[in-house]
């Protein structure tokens, strides 16, 4: 069953069309990757799904409900959220307060407390730095915080926009381990990546986005085997 279904999505910035009619879906329990070069329209797609950008045309159906044009906070309440590109942690708030923000829609305080403890177990570094303001964390720690913050709302569908961007290889491995962990604990994942090696390896299916259009689609394995994809996105 499709948890998320995007149909004929068209998005404009002024007169410039960034997304030129794309359709794709994410099924319950899958990891799906959207790969594409810089400027292909990955972030625009993600932000349109979350209601942060209003699409010109097309529809976004989540969990059987049409959410096109719905305010972002309502979409979050429905069980979908995003780790945005560039982390965007709240730099003036502490690690702990950032995690609390992630649980903004949760009313049950004891559950929030348990969840935060759980996050500190998954990311010990965050536990060590819980009283530190997020602006003073390293890039890797900020990425962990952004991921922890997003999972605080127990999303059914978690989207991640280039979570490995700018991280050292060891940290990139860690980020993908965490994504797999989230997936194993029941979260459906839509991943956006420029560097496709690791993301295709963990993906059930993938779409290639070029210039605002989907040009190739297939399983993770198929795309990794494709000569064309290897040349364009996997470094040969």
């Amino acid at each position, binding site marked *: 069953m499709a948890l998320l279904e995007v149909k004929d999505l068209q998005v404009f910035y002024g007169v410039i069309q960034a997304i030129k009619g794309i359709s794709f879906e994410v099924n319950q329990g899958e990891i799906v990757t959207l790969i594409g070069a810089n400027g292909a329209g990955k972030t625009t797609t993600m*932000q349109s799904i*979350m*209601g*942060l950008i209003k699409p010109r045309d097309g529809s976004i159906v989540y969990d059987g409900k049409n959410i096109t044009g719905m*305010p*972002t*906070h309502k979409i*979050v*309440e429905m069980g979908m*959220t*995003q780790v*945005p590109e*560039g982390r*965007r*942690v*709240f*730099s*003036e*708030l502490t690690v702990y*307060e950032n995690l*609390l*923000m*992630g649980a*903004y*829609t949760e009313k049950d305080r004891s559950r929030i407390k348990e969840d935060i403890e759980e996050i500190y177990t998954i990311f010990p570094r965050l536990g060590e730095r819980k009283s530190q303001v997020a602006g003073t964390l390293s890039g890797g720690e900020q990425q962990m915080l952004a991921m922890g*913050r*997003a999972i605080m*709302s127990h999303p059914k569908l978690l989207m991640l926009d280039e979570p490995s961007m700018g991280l050292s290889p060891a940290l990139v491995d860690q980020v993908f381990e965490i994504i797999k962990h989230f997936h194993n604990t029941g979260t459906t994942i839509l991943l956006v990546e420029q560097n496709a090696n690791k993301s295709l390896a963990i993906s059930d299916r993938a779409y290639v986005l070029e210039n605002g259009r989907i040009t190739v689609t297939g399983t993770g394995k198929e795309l990794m085997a494709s000569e064309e994809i290897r040349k364009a996105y996997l470094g040969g």
Partner: protein
Amino acid sequence: MSTLIDGLSLGSVYALIALGYTMVYGIAKMLNFAHGDIIMVGSYAIFTTMSLCGFPLVAILVAVVVCTLLGIAIEKVAYKPLRGASPLAVLITAIGVSYLLQGIAQLIYGSTSKPVTIINMGNFQIGNSTVRVSSIVTLVVGAILMVILTLFINMTKTGRAMIAVSEDRGAAELMGINVNKIISITFAIGSALAAAASVCYLFQIPSTMPTLGAMPGIKAFTAAVIGGIGSIPGAVIGGVLLGVIENVCKSTPLSPFTTAIEFGLLIVILLVKPTGILGKKRREKV
């Protein structure tokens, strides 16, 4: 001594108003030039209630309620439809709202000044200087409100959501925060503080007219910019600094140049530190 206390008390009035400017700027990213006129509306609310029933506490309560509701209404009607519009359009609208409020006040109450005495508090002596009780009351009320505001912002869920929205509206939305609601709450708090400022202002100068809010509004805006617009402690520091400088200047031969000196200070501070004393450089969003 009394000059300093009067200065500090004027400074807390400026700080209370400056907090409204700075919070709205930080969270809604706009300059609400009608903010000063909320003080004027508060003063007329007190004037009307006092002449109807004569109970100071009722009058103060009415002023707070009227200002809070007015702040929320202005945001809903005038600014919310302009979300995403050019900053210039928002600015012009704010100036329009300011003139509208002054016009309405003039229509109802006329343009001459009206006496508004809330309570006569008198003076007392410390050593050989006379201190006005109203100044002490203002200082204490200002300090208490600022402490409450600081606690509210740092310790409550809504307060932290306000910090999150001021830092990154999009990321705050992704947390499930209803940004429009937070902006509305910000206007409500800013306007309630303006009502408090109005009460304190009338303690010092017991009369009002339709343009009452203009000068303290501009001064408080200057204070907010000096302290670093968007910064709450900045607004307090800027307000107190300006109030003390104003009162000290007025007790010296430099008195006629008081306002010039205040704006001079603004220019000097902006030259040395363009973001104000506690202002941060805003991270440009990509």
